[in-house]
């Protein structure tokens, strides 16, 4: 599971891209540039990237309403995502999906999902398709801590165990189900114990540490590819912004977010680790930072200047044939 230099650079670049993408959206949303509801992934980057680094391009993921990070980590086109979020023609979904419905089926990205708990059943289905095709692919179902209280997730976990489907259930536990604390909403307080009770290995790890996420995922992926069935991974992570952009976060503790950014930041952790191990130099990481900022800037400019979807797009793609 040793990561080579290219993989480490890619991981850092993706994490940084997610961070800057979200930080920029936070600003643009404040300026009224973005229509609709947007849920930012900032703070959680190590989770999306650590998981997806353990996957191939052909593996499947299903995502959540907080899906930008998963999209970028699975290789979705960043300028195309930005156009989509701006509701513009040429967006990944031609402006018809928006932030909550970004998908790229060619990348195995089966969609962000506006319904909490909506994705895991889909992942079971994709895993059944992989099993029948014998192509060794796996399906990852991303969900938040909130999703662990949805019946759909229970059904999906049980069915995956019953069918020995190659699914990895990833619970991103950021401590908040929208505006409600996990300590209140998760009755037992222990998401992994629930998964384990369905009959699958369930691991907890530090979601702000890319390496912990990656290693835990590699183990689950290997088990799934070898016919060992599903696994559950619970990652403790930090959410830097509100449930949706624009809400005042009155439920956060005083100085809580600043403290998380100071002590738990996944990018800071990553830089320190690869620096201490002399795997990547600070100079190289700084170069990547500059390139990422350029990409985000050009993506925003591209989205701003892109045309609106044509009027006839309202009527297309309802059916393949009708």
């Amino acid at each position: 599971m040793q990561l080579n230099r290219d993989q480490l650079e890619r991981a850092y670049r993706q994490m940084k891209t997610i961070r800057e993408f979200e930080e920029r959206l936070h600003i643009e949303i404040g300026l009224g540039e973005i229509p609709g509801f947007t849920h930012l992934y900032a703070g959680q980057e190590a989770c999306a990237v650590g998981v997806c680094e353990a996957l191939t391009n052909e593996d499947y993921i299903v995502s959540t309403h907080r899906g930008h990070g998963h999209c970028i980590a699975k290789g979705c086109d960043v300028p195309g995502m930005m156009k989509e979020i701006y509701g513009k023609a040429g967006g990944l979904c031609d402006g018809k999906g928006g932030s909550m419905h970004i998908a790229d089926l060619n990348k195995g990205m089966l969609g962000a999902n506006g319904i909490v708990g909506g994705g895991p059943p889909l992942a079971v289905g994709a895993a059944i398709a992989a099993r029948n095709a014998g192509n060794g692919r796996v399906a990852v179902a991303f969900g938040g801590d909130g999703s662990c209280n949805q019946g759909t997730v229970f059904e999906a976990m049980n069915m995956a165990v019953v069918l020995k489907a190659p699914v990895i259930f990833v619970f991103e536990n950021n401590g908040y189900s929208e505006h409600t604390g996990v300590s209140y909403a998760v009755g037992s307080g222990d998401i992994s114990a629930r998964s384990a009770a369905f009959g699958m290995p369930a691991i907890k790890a530090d979601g702000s540490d890319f390496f912990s996420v990656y290693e835990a995922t590699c183990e689950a992926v290997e088990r799934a590819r070898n016919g060992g069935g599903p696994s559950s991974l619970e990652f403790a992570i930090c959410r830097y912004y509100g449930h949706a952009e624009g809400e005042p976060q009155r439920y956060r503790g005083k100085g809580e977010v600043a403290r998380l950014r100071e002590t738990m930041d996944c990018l800071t952790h990553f830089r320190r680790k690869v620096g201490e191990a002399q795997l990547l130099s600070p100079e190289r990481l700084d170069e990547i930072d500059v390139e990422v900022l350029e990409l985000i800037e050009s993506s925003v400019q591209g989205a701003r200047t892109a045309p609106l979807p044509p009027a006839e797009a309202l009527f297309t793609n309802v059916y393949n044939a009708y």
Partner: protein
Amino acid sequence: MSIKSYRDAINECLHQEMERDVNVVVFGEDVVGGSGTEGGKEAIGGVFSLTAGLWGKYGDNRVFDTPISESAIVGAAAGAALAGLRPVVEIMFSDFFGLCLDQMYNQAAKFNYMFGGGAKTPMVVRTTTGAGMSAAAQHSQSNYNWVTNIPGMKVLLPSNPYDAKGLLAAAIRGEDPVVFYENKLLYGIKGEVPDDTYVIPLGKGNLTRQGKDATIVAFSRMVHIANAVADRLAADGITCDVIDPRTTSPLDEEMILESVQETGRLIVVDECNPRCGLARDIAGLVASQAFEFLDAPIKLVTPPHTPIPFAPNLEHAYLPNEAKVEAAVREALGGR
């Protein structure tokens, strides 16, 4: 061509489509039956025996029992369809759609649109509909009106064995999600069904009776009631067009409008509850697009706005029947 039951026509279609395309898979509750039991698998092949014999022929990967988990069944079908399979899943009673509606209407039906095109979701949800066997309020309902309201979903309502086989084949071979409503009171009816495979195009109604005095539009089992009434009235010199739209999404609006333009009178017979049901939908279509051709108010024959009662006498009172339909037609004709 031979005489087959509605049940056997569907079962034969499933066998032939599984034979034709390795990507067709069948799963759901008890579709094999007996998984994890001492008696062993293929105990029943579906509670109504529609999937009998499939597991023995196509094996564990293509035909399998699931836990009682309607959301996961429909969601897994949607995910599998996105990933290249053509799942045909069974939801034992459409009354259970309350448990899996999200996966139907927020997920499967919307993928192609939300994702900006390019998403094929070739999945079929087979389910049962219809009252008339004292199955009471949670095992008898007709909810195809709700599903018809979902852009992206197709809705099929075969009323006879020939249509059942041809519509199911079309559903399985298409690229969009479909709900296929089997009327459980029709499973035993028989009719001519070709042995070979064939496809009935969706959105093409079936004119089951021809006449000049009135148009009766009826769905699923109600078609048989409408036909019987048309035959009886014909003996009195009153002739009716009877239209079985066969699919409510897409809907053959043209056939309905053309017929009403000729007859000037419309009677709709529908088993859905009346509010926002198919009867008012068809009435709205005709009132808005062919009002000037109408010679009389549109008559609707539906159940009342109540749940479905258990007691046979009450259920009888609930359902449309030949007497109610005949009275409606005669009323539309000014008491003839």
